[in-house]
């Protein structure tokens, strides 16, 4: 039954999201534009493998943008369309429904990586090198899971507030910068890097980048993967704790509806 709820929620979410022009822009146009921008920035930088920063960077920025504006923004859309209260009081547990929405969005948002890759190939004709495809797939899978868990925490917190749009705009760009989607976090100030390394996407990006360049030091790859898994487990526990809290809190604070 739970899988049917998750699957049907995924399908509903994908249909709903794709019907929105803003989501289509984030999913299709945004990665193309980001790829062009990043290619122009990196073409004289000395970095020869454009896969590492241009394609991956633009794809991840697009992926994160879609997650922010859909997984997080959906809470507000549901609130304004009067369906948030309906799904909240359905016999299915609310976190399961939110999980279905987030999985649907995240899987669809993975298209940004493909679009970014196609843009780089078609527009600039550059050779895109992926040295360790097996490791890349493992890193990508871990990244998808960690993004789903992070989205779940964000969606949960946004259920508590009606200022959802403000918050999702506040987290979109900073997350891309702090987690090093388009440049290595080593260029950031040491104080900022502390934040980078408590955020799991930082490790996800580093692992994918390692796979693009070719994993020479497998110990280092698995070390980073272990940290990523550990952080994802911690976020999952936080998410479970928060959902238990918000179940009471939203009904006390009356934030499920607009008025």
């Amino acid at each position, binding site marked *: 039954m739970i899988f049917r*709820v998750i699957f049907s*929620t995924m399908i*509903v979410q994908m*249909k709903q999201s794709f019907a929105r022009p803003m989501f289509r822009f984030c999913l299709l146009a945004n990665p193309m534009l980001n790829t062009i921008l990043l290619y122009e920035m990196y073409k004289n930088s000395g970095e020869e493998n454009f896969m590492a920063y241009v394609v991956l960077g633009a794809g991840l920025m697009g992926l994160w943008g879609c997650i922010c504006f859909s997984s997080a923004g959906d809470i507000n859309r549901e609130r304004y*369309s009067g*369906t948030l209260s309906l799904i*909240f009081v359905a016999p299915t547990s609310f976190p399961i*429904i939110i999980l279905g929405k987030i999985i649907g969005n995240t899987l669809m948002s993975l298209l940004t990586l493909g679009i970014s890759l196609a843009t780089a190939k078609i527009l600039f004709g550059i050779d895109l090198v992926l040295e360790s495809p097996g490791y890349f797939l493992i890193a990508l899978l871990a990244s998808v899971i960690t993004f789903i868990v992070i989205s779940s925490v964000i969606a949960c917190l946004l259920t508590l507030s009606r200022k959802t749009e403000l918050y999702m705009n506040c987290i979109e760009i900073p997350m891309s910068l702090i987690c090093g989607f388009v440049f290595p976090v080593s260029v950031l100030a040491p104080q900022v890097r502390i934040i980078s390394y408590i955020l799991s996407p930082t490790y996800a990006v580093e692992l994918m980048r390692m796979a693009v360049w070719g994993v020479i030091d497998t110990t280092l790859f698995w070390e980073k993967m272990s940290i990523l898994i550990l952080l994802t487990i911690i976020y999952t526990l936080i998410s479970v704790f928060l959902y238990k809290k918000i179940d009471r809190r939203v009904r006390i604070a009356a934030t499920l509806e607009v008025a």
Partner: protein
Amino acid sequence: MEKVICVKDLKREYHKKSGLFKKNKNIVKAVDGISFDVYEGEIFGLLGQNGAGKTTTIKMLTTLLAPTSGQCQVLGYKTFGEEKNIRSKINFIFGGEMGVYRRLSARDNLRYFSNLYLIPANLQKERIDNILELVDLKDRADDLVETYSKGMIQRLQIARGLINDPEILFMDEPTVGLDPVGARMLRDIIRKLKAQGKTVLLTTHNLSEVEELCDRVVIINKGKVIYGGTPEEIKGDSLSLEDAYVKLIEEVSE
């Protein structure tokens, strides 16, 4: 008859903050110590002016809102704390055009809510077809809801409210915006539900609807119950229920 809703000295306050730097806290008493019981198979009306506390009461009964204090029980369970025992057995319909997914078809909406209400897959198709026929949406069932008229959206809301075959149906101004044919259709549905032994709690401003449908009503004003009884008892010697209602409201407002 068994008591299915029990409300005793129920209160709900909203805390509102105003001011940019110096926050002023205002407490709004939306529901201020109301009490009433509803019995199985009854059609029970909750009447009152706009802002009287009807919707807040329904939201507490449907497990959407936590009461500030007092007793609020549905089917013998607390609506805050024991809601898991209640949710699969109730449903609610709020008037207006909210509460449906506009970028899905009516059938997809109902299929999705069937899944959320954990209705077995083998029962879903037949139930959805029957409900679509009941609310007269079968011909447009596969069109996107965003192409529907206001009345059609409201009928879809009604269909959604019936999807889990609820023991108790809560309706908050369900006929607002419905054309006379749609409103009559809804009244027929409510009567059918009563014939099946279901309980309906409804709020409405349409007093002829109350006279026609409700077994008992309570009138709420500024969060307090000011009268309770059958529509005939409220009407008393007045020419109409509306006259009696207006008189009661004016008396307490003086």
